């Protein structure tokens, strides 16, 4: 694309923005002219209108439509009630997808948070803490697809001869046969989880390490004077003090895990029993062309996120109340 085309496009954008501003100002002016009593309400609605419009068009409408689509067949021409949902809970592959997703959302947040917490506690207050933190945080800077390719190298398999994959070469060195890791169900699921844990541990460490700094030393010293063992201090003093940070980390990782797509897509394509909800949703809707099933998967995903979001919102509200 040459410069003139670019300027033409951005010019158009500028005109659009200017027009939008003019319309908003005009509406605001009209609202100002209204009687004093109604003024604030009118002004508020004028300024809320664009946000509500975008929310409605960009979020509410697609969500409702997805929900409706999940009751229709593949090309959306026939109402089939709950058939898609029946399929999810009866088809072997779809069930496998659900089981895998369940494993992912239990194992990955738990493991990431636990490892992050242990690591944060171990390095807390040591010399070179920053370096240790930076080392474990580095994978956070790598995109999911990038990380997947790195780990695909690690798991790379050749039937015989020198191995390209690190893991298989280690096996060959100790005299074992190489294993086709990514094709071996159910191990392959856990090997994929390793990738996400590898990424998320850094995030957990950094957040929890910061929380640890906030634990008052007086409490810990008091516990120590009272004769508490290090394990007791950890479980009864440190962990409760940073409980809210742990919850934030676990919930964030949980949501990231639930919508996980990239790692499965880049490493196995969902084959060999490694599919998860978010990937299967895309696979059904776009690769296999079954919009109904794709929408059903999306609705399930939505249903799974809601409780966590509600919990998180309540958590934040309670914290705000406590802070007051």
């Amino acid at each position: 694309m040459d410069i003139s085309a670019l300027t033409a496009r951005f010019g158009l954008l500028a005109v659009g923005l200017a027009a939008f501003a003019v319309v908003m100002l005009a509406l605001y002016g009209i609202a100002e002219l209204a009687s004093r009593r109604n003024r604030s309400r009118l002004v508020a609605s004028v300024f809320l209108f664009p946000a509500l419009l975008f929310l409605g068009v960009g979020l509410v409408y697609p969500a409702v439509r997805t929900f409706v689509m999940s009751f229709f067949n593949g090309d959306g021409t026939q109402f089939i009630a709950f058939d898609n949902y029946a399929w999810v809970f009866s088809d072997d592959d779809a069930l496998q997808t659900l089981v895998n997703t369940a494993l992912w959302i239990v194992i990955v947040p738990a493991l990431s948070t636990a490892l992050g917490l242990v690591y944060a506690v171990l390095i807390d207050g040591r010399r070179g803490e920053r370096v240790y933190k930076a080392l474990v945080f580095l994978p956070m800077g790598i995109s999911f697809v990038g990380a997947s390719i790195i780990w695909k190298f690690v798991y790379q398999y050749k039937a015989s001869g020198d191995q390209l994959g690190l893991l298989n070469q280690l096996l060959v060195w100790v005299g074992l046969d190489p294993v086709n890791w990514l094709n071996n169900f159910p191990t392959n699921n856990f090997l994929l989880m390793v990738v996400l844990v590898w990424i998320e541990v850094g995030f957990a460490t950094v957040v929890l390490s910061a929380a640890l700094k906030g634990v008052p030393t007086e409490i810990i010293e008091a516990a120590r004077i009272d004769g508490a063992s290090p394990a007791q201090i950890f479980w009864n003093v440190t962990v409760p003090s940073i409980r809210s940070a742990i919850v934030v980390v676990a919930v964030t990782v949980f949501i990231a895990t639930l919508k996980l797509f990239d790692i499965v897509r880049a490493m196995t394509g969902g084959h060999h029993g490694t599919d998860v909800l978010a990937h299967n949703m895309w696979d059904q809707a776009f690769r296999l062309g079954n919009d109904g099933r794709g929408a059903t998967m999306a609705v399930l995903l939505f249903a799974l996120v809601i409780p966590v979001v509600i919990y998180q919102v309540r958590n934040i509200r309670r914290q705000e109340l406590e802070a007051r």
Partner: protein
Amino acid sequence: MSNTRRLMCLAAATSALAIAATACGAPEEEGEGRGEVPDAAQDCANYEQFGSFEGETVSIFGSIRDTEADEMVEAWSYFEECTGVTIEYEGSGEFEADMKVRVDGGNAPSIALFPQPGLMANYADSLVPASDEVSALATEGWSEDWLNYGTIDGTLYAPPNSANAKSFIWYSPSFFSENGYEVPTTWDDLIAVSDQIAADGVMPWCAGFESGGATGWPGTDWIEDIVLREGTDLYDQWANHEIPFNDPQIVAAIEKAGSVVTNEDYIYNGVDTISSTPFQEAGYPILDGNCAMYRMASFYGAMWPADTNVAEDGDVFAFQFPEQNEGDNTMLVGGEFVAAFSDSEATEATRQFLASELYHNARLQTGPWSTAHQGVDPNNATTPINVLATQILTDPSVTVRFDASDIMPGEVGASSFWTGVIQWVDGSKDAQEIADDIENSWPQ
């Protein structure tokens, strides 16, 4: 299955298997197998028939990428120059998904190169049928078998672009001649020669079905080859689901494929390594004399290690998959179909050009490629295997059938069929069980 091959190339590129990455459809060295646009196709006088469309743009979207795409673009570069049409070509590794997003979103390309007729049929409502001119060119250029795959409900929409010959068995000509083995022409001969090779102490077959996310597809080709040779009617009924997938004849065909593929006395390295051996490397033991034969499409010619001489008198070459019934001459094929979403005049002219002998002859010479267009001289193909493939593909006496897994719905052809084949060679399910599973996965 050209689309899976490209999927594979994507997978290979990401997994950076050096061997595979260089093997995606084109030779790694500039010059080898690469040619020029022939003189006749450089002369603007030959393009006058298509008209003049200065300043107009036609977008083409396909699954062909990298070197292969460059060679294709080169083949139509003179068309652009002489008619003034600008062709914007875009290749995608996620063709199926991208295509749906574009068409649903109202951004369909002017022309799409569909690697699967089944996928194309999903878009029939948005496609522009072939004009009389395109139909005339198509009828002149291709056999009825081919055009049937570009026809939806009796209307021709899309003539083919490239064509792949899939019913090939790779072998070492010198190994065969030194040991006095004959190239088999019937199934019984094939089994006889396999037994003979096995008795002489060499494993007769290599096999490898690993292909990243598309693992299993080489096995579907094996089964398709057998079904096709049991009878073309049976094949058509099977591909179009007029008979169930677990019909006794199909189960028998899978078992027959199994007499080679799951035969421990035949398979180099053992049957349990098939699903984990990458198909790109699976044929290499032929070069070392460790196995004698490998069933893989003509595009495998570009996948041999760099210094391999792929020719009838060279290190490796291929023969046509043997027939079951006397007098049959069948070929399993793949290819792309040129379908249009726009009815603009420039698009129409481009469609006419892409269906013309002029384009197919030029494309045949810009790089390793094969076509079923009757108007080309197969000897112009740039490599011996493509000469052979084009000879067979343009031979009117050969009955061609399109890769069935590309005709079946995606849930089957790009999913459960692959899974079934993997379970079958891994020994976790038998022919009857996988046929039942696949039948159950067929969308209602």
